[in-house]
């Protein structure tokens, strides 16, 4: 049985927010709720790194542990889902989650004005009939039951965000790292895109000199 996981390649993520948009559009998520978002470290500084974050569908999920109504469950594929009918919007899961995945639409609920918790479902819907209207309204579209992967990963233009069976995803990533053979900015060409012309010229000249030296030998 598959173990569904996300993997984000920070060398490839260009902070386009395509994954965020794809998710919002696919599930018709209300205003103020972002099941996925892009976090950037050193934004605007050369060498900045971005990563797309949502629910990581933890193997030992803290949200499940703290929920007072035990509304969370895990599917056979390792996807952490929850039952909105049992959610009281207490917000404990929000405080327990290290990724800030649980979101609250500020709607009417039993406790305060948080509303029922909403989070990434790995496009697996929830405890309603697969593909039903009720499922779509509560949890969004169930792409997994259609034999598809999450919309965010499938829409990712640079394929920075990978989703699916963990061994397959890690194999793809491993092959990618071996093929590019470089680390850091050189892996995808920061200097090619943003390097100063004189720096590029120096690099070209240096390369030509090295070739000459090798030719003379």
């Amino acid at each position, binding site marked *: 049985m598959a173990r569904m996981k996300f993997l984000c390649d920070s060398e490839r993520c260009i902070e386009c927010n395509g994954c965020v948009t794809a998710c919002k559009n696919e599930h018709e998520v209300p205003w103020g709720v972002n099941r996925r978002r892009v976090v950037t470290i050193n934004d605007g500084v050369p060498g900045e790194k971005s990563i797309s974050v949502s629910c990581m569908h933890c193997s030992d999920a803290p949200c499940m542990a703290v929920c007072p109504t*035990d509304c969370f469950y895990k599917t056979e594929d390792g996807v952490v*889902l929850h039952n909105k009918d049992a959610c009281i919007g207490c917000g404990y899961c929000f405080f327990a989650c290290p990724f800030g995945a649980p979101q609250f639409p500020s709607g009417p609920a039993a406790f305060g004005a948080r509303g029922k918790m909403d989070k990434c479902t790995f496009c697996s819907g929830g405890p309603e009939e*697969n*593909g039903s209207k009720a499922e779509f309204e509560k949890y969004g579209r169930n792409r997994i039951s259609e034999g598809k992967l999450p919309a965010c990963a499938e829409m990712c233009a640079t394929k920075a965000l990978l989703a699916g069976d963990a061994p*397959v995803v890690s194999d793809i990533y491993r092959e990618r790292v071996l093929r590019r053979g470089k680390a850091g900015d050189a892996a995808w060409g920061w200097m090619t895109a943003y390097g100063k012309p004189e720096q590029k010229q120096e690099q070209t000249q240096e390369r030509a000199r090295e070739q000459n030296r090798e030719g003379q030998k």
Partner: protein
Amino acid sequence: MKKGLILALTATFTLGLAACGEYSQVASYKPGSYQGKSDTRPWEGGQFAGNKQAWEAALAARNQAQNEYKKAN
């Protein structure tokens, strides 16, 4: 003498009563289990109508399609 005895008795009585109200305040964690309605598995109903193999094949194909090195070469 009598006053001292009364005071000592009152103090003993008060302290004794105070101890009665003490109980452990450490929460005992009991992991709960999901009690809500059960979810249908992805291959059940809908497009795949219970055909698990077909569902797995479809998902595996999508999984591999993420590897653009295989697409390009």
